[in-house]
C-alpha cells in the first residue's frame, strides 16, 4: 500500500481549521480480477480498481461527506471544501445537532495472510476451474439438460487507511476470493429449475481447493435433477418443517440482523430499505422467540467474508448478541446512533468503497447452534418437510413479514428424508419463526452474501449462517 498517510492527516488538519468538529479521511483501494465463462467457454476477463479518498466531516452539527479519486493535494482539498460547505449549508435544516460518542479508537495495522496470494491466482487456473465445473456437470446428469451453466471467479483486495481527528490511525489489507455459478436444469415435461450458488471468503487462492467447488456443485446438481424429475407438491396441511442452515442463515440476516441496525430503528433508512419493527424501548425487554433464539453478529471470525478488526470509524470490533435466549438484546451501532441511544459504538460502521459513507452494516450473522445431530433433529418427525436450499426470498420494510421458497426440498417420513417436493413456500412473521423454533442441531454452516443498503446503495460482503432448525406445525404455501 503506497498511499501517503500524511495526506490524510493534512486533510484532517485542514478540515478542523475550516471549523469541522470531527474529520475522518479514509483512503480505500479495491482491486481485482474477474473471469466469466458460459457453458465452459470464456466470455471475457475484467480487471477493476477503485482507488480514492472519502472524507466525512461534522460541521455545526451537520454531517457532510465527499469522495474523490483525484489524489493530488488540490483534488483532495476541493473534495474537503465541498464536504464542509455543503454540511454547513444543511445545518439550518437540522433541529438537533448530530453528535458522535467518544470512543477508544485504534492506532494499528492488520492484514490477512494467505498461503496463495491473490497475485498468484492465475487466469488459466480460474478458466480451468470454470471448464471443469461445466464438463463435470454435463456428464453427471442423464434425465435433464443443462442449457445454462455460468461461472464467475473473482479476486478482490481491499486496502484501507483511516485517519480521524480524534486520533484513529488504522491500516488494513483484506484479500477475498469468490466463485459463483448459475445453473438452469431443464426437463421437457417438468419444466425448469434454477440454482445460483456462491462461494466467498476472506483469504487467498488456497480457498479454491478448500471449497471443493466442483464436487460441491456436482453433488447439488445430482440432487436437483431428482427434485426436478420426481418432485411433488408440498403438503397442504400444517406439518413440522426443518429449515436447512442455508435458509436459516439468510433468515437471521434478514429478520435479526437488519432490524437490529440502530440507524434503521431510528429511521435513517426509512425511504430506502425501510425501518424496523424494533423500537428503542424494546431492547433488552421484548421477547421475540423461544430460548433457542440467540443470534450473534461477529466481524472477527477468522476467514469470514465480513471480516474486520476495526470499523471505518476506527472503533475495535467485537461479537454482538442481537437476540439472546429469545430476547431482543443489542443493536448494531456506529458513533452517531450510539450517542442517541446513550450507549457505546460496537463498531458496525462499514463503507463499500472510497466513494461510500460508512454506515451501520452487518458482518457475519448466525443463529447459535445446539448439541444434537441432524438425524436426531428429524428422528421424531412422522410427517414433515426439510427445506435445504432456496432461490426466491424477500422481507417487508420493517423486517417482519418474510418469504422463502424452497429449492432442494424433501418430505420427512417416520424420521427420515423421503421423496423430493417442489417450490414449497415458507411465509412467516419474524416472531412466528423465532417462537416456533423447537430444536436446533449442532451443524453450524456459513454462506456468503452481498448485503445491500444505503443511498447510493452499498453492497458489502457478509456471511450468514446457522444450524438446521425444526419448526412446529407450519402451513406451507405453493409457489406460482
Amino acid at each position: 500500500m503506497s498511499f501517503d498517510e500524511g495526506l490524510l492527516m493534512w486533510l484532517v488538519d485542514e478540515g478542523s481549521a475550516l471549523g469541522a468538529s470531527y474529520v475522518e479521511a479514509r483512503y480505500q483501494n479495491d482491486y481485482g480480477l474477474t473471469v466469466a465463462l458460459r457453458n465452459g467457454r470464456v466470455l471475457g476477463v475484467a480487471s477493476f480498481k477503485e482507488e480514492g479518498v472519502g472524507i466525512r466531516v461534522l460541521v455545526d452539527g451537520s454531517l457532510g461527506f465527499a469522495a474523490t479519486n483525484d489524489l493530488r493535494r488540490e483534488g483532495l482539498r476541493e473534495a474537503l471544501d465541498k464536504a464542509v460547505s455543503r454540511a454547513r449549508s444543511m445545518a439550518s435544516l437540522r433541529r438537533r445537532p448530530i453528535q458522535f460518542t467518544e470512543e477508544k479508537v485504534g492506532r494499528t495495522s492488520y492484514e490477512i495472510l494467505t498461503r496463495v496470494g491473490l497475485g498468484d491466482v492465475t487466469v488459466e487456473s480460474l478458466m480451468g476451474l470454470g471448464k471443469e465445473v461445466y464438463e463435470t456437470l454435463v456428464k453427471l446428469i442423464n434425465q435433464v439438460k443443462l442449457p445454462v451453466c455460468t461461472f464467475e471467479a473473482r479476486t478482490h483486495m481491499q486496502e484501507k487507511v483511516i485517519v480521524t481527528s480524534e486520533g484513529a490511525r488504522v491500516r488494513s489489507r483484506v484479500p477475498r476470493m469468490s466463485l459463483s455459478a448459475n445453473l438452469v436444469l431443464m426437463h421437457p415435461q417438468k419444466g425448469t429449475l434454477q440454482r445460483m450458488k456462491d462461494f466467498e471468503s476472506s483469504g487467498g487462492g488456497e480457498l479454491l481447493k478448500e471449497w471443493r467447488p466442483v464436487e460441491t456443485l456436482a453433488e447439488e446438481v445430482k440432487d436437483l435433477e431428482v427434485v426436478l424429475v420426481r418432485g411433488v407438491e408440498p403438503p397442504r396441511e400444517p406439518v413440522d418443517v426443518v429449515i436447512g442452515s442455508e435458509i436459516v442463515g439468510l433468515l437471521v440476516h434478514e429478520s435479526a440482523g437488519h432490524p437490529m441496525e440502530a440507524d434503521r430503528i431510528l429511521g435513517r433508512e426509512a425511504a430506502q430499505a425501510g425501518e424496523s419493527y424494533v423500537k428503542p424501548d424494546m431492547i433488552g425487554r421484548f421477547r421475540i422467540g423461544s430460548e433457542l433464539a440467540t443470534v450473534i453478529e461477529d466481524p472477527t471470525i477468522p476467514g469470514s467474508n465480513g471480516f474486520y478488526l476495526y470499523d471505518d470509524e476506527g472503533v475495535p470490533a467485537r461479537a454482538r448478541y442481537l437476540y439472546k435466549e429469545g430476547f431482543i438484546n443489542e443493536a448494531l451501532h456506529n458513533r452517531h446512533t450510539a450517542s442517541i441511544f446513550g450507549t457505546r459504538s460496537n463498531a458496525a460502521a462499514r463503507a463499500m468503497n472510497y466513494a461510500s459513507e460508512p454506515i451501520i452494516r452487518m458482518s457475519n450473522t448466525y443463529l447459535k447452534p445446539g448439541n444434537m445431530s441432524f438425524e436426531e433433529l428429524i428422528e421424531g418427525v412422522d410427517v414433515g418437510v426439510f427445506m435445504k436450499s432456496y432461490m426466491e426470498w424477500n422481507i417487508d420494510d420493517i423486517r417482519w413479514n418474510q418469504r422463502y421458497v424452497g429449492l432442494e426440498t424433501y418430505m420427512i417420513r417416520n424420521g427420515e428424508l423421503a421423496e423430493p417436493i417442489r417450490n414449497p413456500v415458507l411465509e412467516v412473521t419474524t416472531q412466528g419463526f423465532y417462537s416456533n423454533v423447537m430444536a436446533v442441531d449442532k451443524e453450524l454452516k456459513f454462506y456468503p452474501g452481498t448485503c445491500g443498503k444505503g443511498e447510493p446503495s452499498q453492497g458489502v460482503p457478509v456471511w450468514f449462517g446457522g444450524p438446521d432448525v425444526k419448526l412446529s406445525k407450519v402451513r406451507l404455501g405453493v409457489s406460482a
Partner: protein
Amino acid sequence: MTEPMEIGRRVVERLRSSYDDVAVLLRTRDKVMVKLWNTEPSIAQSWLTTEVALLLTKSKRVVILGFSVSSPEEVFKAVENISGIVERVEESELYAPLPEPLEVRPVEGMFDPGLVHAMNDPGPLTWKIIDAALSQGVEKVAGALTLSRELRTLVTSKGFEGGEEKTYVETYLRAFKGEFSGHWAYGSSHINEYEIRRVGVRAGMYATITNSKADLQPGRYDVVLSPLVVGNLMNYVSFMSSALAVLMGYSMFIKYRPGERIASEKLTLVDTPRDPTLPNATSFDDEGVPTYDKPIIERGVFRNLLHNSGTASKLGVQSTGNSGWLMPTAWNLRLEPGNLDEEELASELRNGVIITNNWYTRLQNYVEGVFSTVVRDAALLVKDGEIVGDVGRVRIAMSFPELLSNVESLSKDVYDIKWWEVQTPIKAPYILVRNANLTKPHM
C-alpha cells in the same frame, strides 16, 4: 487535469498497435445528494470522480478494465499490469470487432444549466419537497434529492469520438402519518419545480388517504399498480430483455422468439435512449453505435432483445445500440399510456387493491419468470369503488408472463420515475391488472 477526450485519444493512440480493438470510455461526475430522515438532513454527500473503462481485444480475446484514475500515465500503468493476461485468456464466444463509426445524431436538451446552479446549494430545493409533503398533514418525511452533472466520453480505435454532457435530478420522498405512509419519486434530466413539489404532495396524499386498516385474505384480486410499482417490475422485464441475460439464463425470454405474443395487447414497452427528458438519454452506446428508440414488447408482442455487437454477432442479428461492453442494457423506458384518467381506472377496478409502492422483487426462476415482491406504503382495499382501508404489507406472487398478460387498462398520464427501486428511468402510467395473486404470512 487533462481533458477526457484528450486522455481517450492518447490512450487509444498508445495502445492501438498492441491490440486489435481499443475503446476508452470516461465518465467525469460532479454529484451531490442530500439524504433526509425524520424531516431533516442526515447527510450531504458529494462526489468528484473520473472513471475510466477500457476495452481491449486481441485475436478474439476480450479484456475489460475499469479504474478510477486522473491521468493517461496512470491508465498506461494499469494496462501494463494486465498486459500479459490478454495473451493467456481464451477466445471469447461473444467477441465481435468494434463497429465502424456511423453518423451520430445528437440528442438535444439533456443539459440543464439551472440544475448545475442548484448543485451549489441544494438546501432550498430540499425544503420545497419537505414543505409540499408537510402541507398534506403528515408527521415526518424521509427521502433523498440527488443532482448530478456528467460528462461521458468515448474514443475507439475505429475512429469514433463522442462526448456528451448531461444533468439529472432524482428525488423521492416517503411521508408518514401514524402507522400509514406514502411514497413518490421523480427522475429527469431537468429541474421542474412543479414535478419536484409533486413528489412531496403525492407522498403526503398517499400517507393520509385513509386512517383505517383493512383485512385481506390471501387470494386472487384485481389490482391497480402505481407508476412506482410499474417502474420496478418493468425494470426486471427490461433486464431480462438483454441478450446477455438470455444467454446467461437470467431471462424468461429464453423461451420466446420475437413475434410471439407474451402480453396483453394493451402493453407496449419501449427502450427510449433518445428521450432527452429522462436521465439516461444518449445518442451513442458504449461502442459508438447510434442509439434509437425500439419496442421490447409492442401491443403484447415480443419484438426485440437488446444487443451490443458481441451478443448480436453470437445470435446473428444487428446491434440495437444498447452496448454495455459485455451486458447490453436498456437506457430509459417508456410504458405506453392508455386512455383512462386515474379516477376512471380506479372506477374500473371496482373491487380490488390499489398498490402504490413495492420493493424487494426476487425471482424463484428467471426462465419461468416466477417472482414475488413486497408491497409497502399505501395499499388500498377498494370495495364497490370506495377505498375502505389499508391492507398493509402483502405480497404479489405470480409470474411475469401471467402479470403481463393480465394488464387490462392503463392511465393516460405518465410519470417520470427514478428511485432506489427503479434504477432504469421510466415514463410509466398506472395500470390495472386482473387476477393478481396476493399472499401474506401463514404464522
